[in-house]
């Protein structure tokens, strides 16, 4: 049988096996099919080789991230546990006042949810939209567990008059379908008014848009600073004699290998008002003892610490590209009469662009997602959007909100990546 799968054997036999014009193998099958079969076997074998990696990526990366992102537009906390009321909302369009059927559905669902210990989930879901309602649901739940008599409208309003609030009914209607865009609305400081229209939240509650802007602006600034600082260092690394450049390389890599927390804390020691730098400035008499500079727990501190931490990600790709640039190009330009500035601008710099692009993308994307450093040294003005994502993940446990914010951040980064690809071309990226 092995012969049938071997294309060489097949070709050898076709010379003698001509019967109906088509090339055939020794056992009479068309050569085209035999070839396709043997090639698909080879492909399958190759696929089996990458299967473990594929499974690993799927299980540890694609599935969890997909599940997390799904929470941003799918939350069945209300609809799954309040089926009858959800059904009433589906049958009656917005604008219909809750009638007896609605109150009965609400009462039945509340009783079932209280018995099934799911009322907290329901209350938590509505609390995202109307703060303060979680306890309305749980306290009502404790009472209806003791029994509830019709007429339900009067009975529920008797337990708590907030049950009549139009805002609450509007929020329940919004939550009655598991698919929702409300978390995305909240992530851009918008919400749904009682009549279903989209409005801005109160000014004093607006925070996310501002934090998104600040995150992108600070990331841009940090990328620019790492470029200005990193470019000359990378050039030195690439052009110095081996022994000196090795030493320099160690100076670049040593902080790169040091723990992020250690480096952040060191900056705190250096920059704080009673810290090393302020002490030196006061000792030198540059500033008075009462005018110590505030260099940390604000945006300045965030920029300094993050620039330091991200600098190697700019230097290393630049260096690897610069090493491959043949110095004779610049020499040729100079010999043809270019000034050193022109030679740099027209000949050397364009050749470093692939490294610059890779470094800038790396630094920018890492900076956009940073949160430990801003959390520790950011104070009030150095907070980034990732700090809010972390807060929703760990403190308020509103994972849908965290997912919506993260999805927007991911979307923005992908968009930037696409723009970069259109403008510079992703093939021009070189990591080494």
């Amino acid at each position, binding site marked *: 049988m092995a012969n049938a799968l071997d294309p060489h054997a097949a070709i050898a036999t076709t010379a003698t096996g001509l019967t109906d014009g088509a090339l055939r193998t020794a056992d009479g099958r068309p050569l085209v099919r035999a070839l396709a079969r043997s090639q698909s076997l080879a492909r399958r074998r190759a696929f089996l080789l990458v299967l473990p990696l594929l499974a690993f990526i799927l299980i540890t990366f694609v599935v969890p991230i997909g599940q997390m992102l799904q929470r941003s537009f799918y939350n069945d906390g209300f609809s799954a546990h309040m089926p009858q009321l959800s059904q009433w909302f589906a049958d009656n369009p917005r604008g219909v006042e809750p009638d007896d059927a609605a109150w009965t559905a609400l009462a039945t669902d509340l009783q079932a949810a209280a018995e099934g210990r799911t009322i*907290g*989930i329901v209350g938590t879901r509505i609390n995202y939209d109307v703060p303060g309602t*979680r306890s309305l649901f749980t306290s009502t739940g404790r009472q209806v567990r003791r029994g509830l008599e019709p007429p339900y409208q009067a009975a529920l309003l008797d337990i708590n008059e907030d049950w009549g609030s139009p805002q609450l009914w509007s929020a329940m209607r919004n939550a009655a379908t598991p698919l929702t865009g409300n978390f995305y609305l909240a992530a851009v400081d918008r919400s749904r008014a009682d009549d279903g229209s989209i409005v801005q939240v109160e000014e004093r509650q607006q925070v996310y848009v501002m934090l998104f802007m600040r995150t992108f602006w600070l990331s841009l600034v940090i990328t620019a600073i790492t470029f200005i600082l990193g470019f000359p260092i990378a050039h030195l690394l690439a052009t110095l004699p081996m022994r000196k450049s090795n030493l320099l390389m160690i100076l670049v890599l040593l902080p790169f290998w040091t723990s992020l927390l250690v480096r952040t804390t060191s900056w705190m020691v250096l920059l704080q*008002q009673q810290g090393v730098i302020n002490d030196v400035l006061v000792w030198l008499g540059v500033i008075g003892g009462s005018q110590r500079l505030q260099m940390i*727990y604000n945006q300045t501190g965030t920029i300094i610490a993050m620039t330091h931490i991200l600098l190697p990600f700019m230097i290393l790709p630049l260096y690897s590209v610069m090493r491959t640039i043949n110095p004779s190009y610049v020499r040729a330009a100079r010999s043809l009469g270019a000034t050193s500035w022109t030679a740099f601008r027209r000949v050397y710099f364009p050749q470093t662009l692939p490294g610059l692009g890779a470094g800038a993308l790396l630094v920018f994307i890492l900076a956009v997602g940073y949160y430990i450093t801003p959390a*520790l040294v950011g104070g009030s003005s150095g907070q980034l959007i990732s700090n809010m994502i972390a*807060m929703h993940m760990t403190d308020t446990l509103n994972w849908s909100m965290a997912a919506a914010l993260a999805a927007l951040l991911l979307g923005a980064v992908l968009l930037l990546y696409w723009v970069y690809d259109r403008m510079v071309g992703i093939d021009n990226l070189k990591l080494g």
Partner: protein
Amino acid sequence: MTRRLIAGTALALIFGVAAQAQDGPINITTYGGAFGAAVNEAFVKPFTAETGVQATMVDNDNPPATLKAQVEAGNITSDVFDVEQSDVLRLCDEGLIEPIDPSILPAAADGTPAEDDYLPQALHECATAIMVWSTVIAYNTEAFPDAAPTTVADFFDTKTFPGKRGIIKRPKYALEFALLGDGVPADEVYDVLSTPEGVDRAFAKLDSIKDQVVWWEAGAQAPQLLADKEVSMTLAYNGRIFDAIVDEGKPFAFVWDGANLDMDYWVVPMGAPNRDVAMQFIAFASDPARQADLSKYIAYGPPRESASASVGTYKDGTTEMAPYLPTTPENAERAVVNDAGFWADHDTELTERFNSWLAGA
């Protein structure tokens, strides 16, 4: 050979799982650090010594989030978790933790049943308190050689008591202290904070010292800021400041006025693999004498009244613990018990407003 190896491994796995399902060993997840070490000494090691059941401490910087993730994924690796009060409400309401039958808890030495012996809010249908800790005002005594601050109002008085202030970078505690500093009586703080005017009032008070505030996020930052003289006064967790005073000899002192009392609780995740052993452990750790014993290792107070009297000295053998504990009657006199229900309702809303306020000029 390979086949035999696979079969052997499979068998080992099956028996391993089966053995685990019967009688432990159990894992106990706490916030770790000094508290984790104290729990290990006061409860976990004695439990293993007495019952022979292997119990292991797991450090975690966010047990409630881990618990939620584990229960939802159906992969529970710890049988007992240490969580805060606000998390107890949320986790219990969402059906993520097992109800705890109060009748399993031992009575006090004089026969008082456990339900009458625990402090208010210390027993919950899904949780029992481990200990009481508090967020308090602490100051560096070297900063105020003449007159020491004694009230929350002094914290907001940067003229009489100059220097920067450290405040935790979240609305919880910051808003309560702001209202106390504005003259709201301790027992009305949460009533006032439930009204929009009350929230405005709290932010207005914070506004008055906004340019003097260093915001901190991790508990360890507070004593560090005091020691570096970055701030002269700060909100801090009492245990951290106690360690700095007693273990490191720092010149810090407490203002107990307005201390915000919180409790940590034992909870058992819904569907824990060793539920019965977990309950056994919780009953074991609820014994008043053992609760008092915890204060030997860390400056947290016992949640049972009968335990307070038997609190002794610190592990150094000389420091009397009572003056440093938030549960000692004279310290708790003007304390606010943190209202977890309020925060479960308003956390998101107030955190957004707080961050918006922080970012503003």
